[in-house]
């Protein structure tokens, strides 16, 4: 399957799962898990960063379209897409792993723990920025902190389950270093 086709399918599936399954969840009137931005987390290592940010904006804008309130998710997605290469550079341990593998996963990051930290940091950024923008309008500081922490925990749990259930097969691309 081509990279383009794969990513398009992922885009559509993740948005549909988010809108029709996860958005209905509202634990303790507070926590709604978000996993649609896995699309950004799974974008290839290589590629134009400005272009990736534009794609991330489109992803956020699509979800905003379903919620009839533009701006929230597009802002959070763009920020995640911008910070992602920094986090990848921090965490990747294997020499030349970003050349040997196509995209971040438990395998290419060199284990489950680095992948957990990678996903965790970006999830925190996404949720933090999203709820910060919401809190600017309602202005309840402690509610915002608690909501961010618990939502990040639940979303991260789901992201890890997704990683275990749908192990993405990635060919080891040799002789590229």
């Amino acid at each position: 399957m081509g990279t383009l086709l794969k990513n398009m399918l992922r885009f559509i599936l993740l948005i549909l799962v988010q809108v029709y399954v996860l958005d209905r969840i509202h634990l303790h009137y507070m926590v709604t898990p978000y996993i649609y931005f896995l699309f950004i987390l799974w974008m290839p290592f290589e590629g134009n960063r400005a272009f990736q940010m534009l794609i991330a904006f489109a992803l956020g804008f699509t979800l905003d379209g379903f919620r009839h309130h533009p701006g929230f998710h597009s802002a959070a997605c763009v920020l995640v897409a911008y910070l992602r290469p920094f986090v990848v550079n921090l965490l990747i341990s294997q020499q030349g792993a970003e050349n040997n593998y196509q995209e971040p996963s438990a395998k290419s990051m060199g284990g489950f723990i680095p992948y957990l930290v990678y996903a965790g940091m970006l999830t925190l950024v996404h949720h933090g920025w999203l709820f910060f923008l919401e809190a600017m309008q309602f202005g309840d500081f402690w509610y915002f902190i608690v909501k961010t922490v618990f939502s990040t925990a639940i979303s991260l749990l789901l992201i890890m389950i997704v990683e275990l259930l749908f192990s993405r097969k990635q060919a080891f691309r040799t002789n590229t270093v």
Partner: protein
Amino acid sequence: MHNLFLFFRRYFNFIVLLLLQGFSIYLLVHYNSYHNALASNFMNEVTGRVNTQFNKVDYFFKLRNTNEVLIKNNERLVNLLNENFEKQDTSTKIVSENIFNDTTGRKRKWQYFSAKVVSNSVAAQNNFIAINRGAGQQIKKDDGVVDLNNGVVGIVTEVGENYSVIMSLLHKDSKISAKLKKGGEVGQVIWDGKEPNRLSLIEIRKSALVAKGDTVYTSGFTTTFPYGLMIGTIDEIVKDKSTNNYILYLKSTANFYNLQYVNAIENLQREEVDQLLKNANIKVNN
């Protein structure tokens, strides 16, 4: 000049980030003006269609609930039938104050249009509801929206060709003029953004007599809702320490978790009232 190009090249990604963030936050803050844009109409049409398909499944699983609501509503309507009433005294004549009467002696002011909910949310802090009826099917902006038991749901904010978007009561900008049934005090119903189906009534003085379970309904002071539609019942009474007012938490009449059908209410006399108010304002200001 060379240095400028170098600068742009070095910080190109960061500049893209700032631009996109700026654009997002602009949309966020000015989302009312965005509503009038062409793009929003297109987005609503697309999401409306996708939502309609998914709603078919969702609707099937909620049929039982919808049926119960319909039966209850049917009972209420049957009770209103003319056959249920007997005219006691035929010698008195009822004189109406309304000048413009039709042959039955009444004039229609409010008209109900039923619509199917195609998407609904309670989990966000600004919740919208989309319905499958738009400008082509007589929905107008600022129409009030109620559920099938006449519990207030929200106000129409965006009207497309075939779909409309309703600002639910569960929205930070939602503000409905409301009245206590017992004492007649008037306040505003807002939402604090935390718990769905739990609204707050503010601007009620502490001198008012309130008790748990009291009914709160629309005041009829706006052109959006008729007088006397249920908004909720008082669930918790809190005294605001900083002001002389109560904060009354209400349990909403409409259950926002399982809305399937709603009625939009059009005020057929809105333009007249608006025009009068506008004229009055112009006179005062000059």
